[in-house]
């Protein structure tokens, strides 16, 4: 589904990603862990198509198509979804209006008619239930005055509505208390099918107790320095990052 080869990218002349290789297949969950500043959020921004980031080398293909040639909205139409670490507040647009617009635009790109409002609202209600979202939420302005947890839940709600093929959850656990974490993780698990895939970016092992990854990758200084199964996350929790980063620093010095 997603293939990243020797990806080098940066911002304002600073190279942050120094050769990333990653392959994600349908049905898989990958966790990307790593210390602050290792390039985790840059990787997600580059996959989603944030224009400030310059790709200096390498390739990303998604379902066989060259992703780097597509606009962010085209990537979304093709099934990529980024759950933002810091979701943006958009005063003046209700959650329902925002989601309706994004679903309508996605359908338009696929040559489909807009979903009738009735069906859309029904779908919204179902997904709200899945994520234990209270009534009245749909008419609130997009992320405006939302708590950290509400913002994150709103991201997963949008993901549930847009049904992406590949979801990238960028630090979705930050700002969530344990109950919210469980609800969000539960939502992600329920949305999982054999056809979609998830990349979970996180600092902590905690989220991975709920969303169990098939693969864990450690990102450090712009490179994946170690990959393993879910037990790697537990090992990192126990030993920290030092034991592998030191080795890597020696290698790339």
């Amino acid at each position, binding site marked *: 589904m997603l293939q990243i080869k020797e990806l080098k990218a940066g911002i304002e002349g600073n190279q942050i990603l120094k050769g990333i290789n990653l392959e994600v297949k349908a049905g898989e969950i990958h966790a990307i862990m790593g210390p602050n500043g290792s390039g985790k959020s840059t990787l997600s921004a580059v996959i*989603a*198509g*944030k*224009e400030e980031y310059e790709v200096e080398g390498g390739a990303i293909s998604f379902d066989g198509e060259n992703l780097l040639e597509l*606009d*962010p*909205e085209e*990537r*979304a*139409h093709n099934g990529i*979804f*980024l759950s*933002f670490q810091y*979701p*943006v507040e*958009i*005063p*003046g*647009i*209700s959650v*329902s*209006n*925002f989601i*309706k*617009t*994004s*679903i*309508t*635009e*996605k359908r338009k*790109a696929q040559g489909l008619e807009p979903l009738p*409002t009735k069906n*859309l609202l029904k779908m919204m209600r179902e997904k709200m239930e899945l994520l234990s979202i209270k009534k009245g939420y749909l008419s609130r302005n997009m992320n405006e005055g939302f708590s950290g947890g509400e913002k994150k839940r709103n991201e997963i709600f*949008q993901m549930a509505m*847009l049904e992406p093929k590949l979801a990238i959850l960028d630090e979705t656990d930050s700002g969530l208390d344990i109950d919210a974490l469980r609800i969000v993780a539960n939502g992600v698990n329920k949305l999982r099918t054999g056809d979609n895939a998830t990349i979970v970016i996180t600092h902590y092992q905690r989220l991975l107790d709920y969303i169990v990854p098939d693969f864990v990758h450690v990102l450090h200084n712009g490179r994946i320095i170690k990959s393993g199964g879910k037990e790697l996350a537990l090992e990192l929790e126990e030993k920290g990052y030092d034991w592998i980063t030191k080795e890597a620093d020696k290698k790339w010095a």
Partner: protein
Amino acid sequence: MGLIKNIKSYSEGIQISAEKREILTSFLSNGFPTTKDEEWKYTSLKKVIANEYSIENKGTIIDSSVIEKYSLGLKNKIIFSDGRLINSPSIKGVNINGFSEFESANTDSILQLNKALSKNGFTISVDKNTALENPIEILFFSTTVNGFSQYRNQISIGENSEVKFIERLQNLNNSASFVNHFTQINCAENTKVEYNKIQNNTAESQLIDTVNVYQEQDSTCNINTLIFGGSFIRNNLNFEQNGSNCESNMNGVSILNNNQLADNHTFVDHKSAHCRSNEMYKGVYLDNSKGVFNGKIMVRPDAQKIDAFQSNNNLLLSDTSSIDSKPQLEIYADDVKCSHGCTIGQLDDDALFYMRSRGIGIEEAKAVLTYAFASEAIENISVEQVKSLAKKLLAKKLNVDLDFSL
């Protein structure tokens, strides 16, 4: 040649009263305001008045499909065609007539000209204790090529009455028409008035629109101005509060492109204590368009406990668009709450990326953010049909197929 000469030669051939002749003479000696005039510092009439205009209305008959096209489909319609009143609804408690003479404060030369030569317009008087459920829609059509038209309208609302209006001036050809529009609204005690102006005329249309509102105690008057079309628009909204517990509200949304200019001048004269005023103007400027906002708030010495708020927020969406914004507060009472705020900005790149990552194309994302920016003022409009028209026109102006509803 130009408009002044057109007016001169037109006025030489007509009969008017000595009083009007005197006012006209005064106008002709003063001429139109120039940018040396403080009130017209940022808005030049030079090009507007350099054109040749036809002052006698030489219109053709309009058919009902035209009316349908521009009407909001409301039951109560007052329709003018080239100055002639061609339709007037009969509403219980409301008297609707054509043009009538009335006194007005002729504070500038534009109003002098209006007073001297207007012969078209409406006169509406609403009885006391009359609350109209349905708004009154007022449509002014013009078929005259390069027409210069003047309308002079008066509305008197009787005590305890409540009325809503929607007004639209529509040119039916693409020529450079110019309208000098004046409306005086007298709000008696405990009245509620909402006046909605849809300014979406053809690309070359030009307009100076002045509204003088006189409010008695416990009255509320809201004026909403939606500017989408027309090459030159100058609005003057003047409120005079002559009793306690008055409220004056103004909402404005301007979405301009190409070489459009829209100038909103507002003046609230707080003459009595315990009154409120609230202004919210949102401007969006594309291409080479230009906006002007001048909001004057005067609080007279005895007008204590005034609560006046003014905001003017602007989005400049191109490198060559501009806005001149000027709050003007003159406060002579010491126990008042007056504040104003002005912002000028661009669309937030992070918000644009956020929306694009959700599959919303860049033009649509810009439109949604622009709508979000303007929606606060649009939501203050109480007539649903006006609100939904505003949303439609906004989408059309920004070239997107979105409906902003749900």
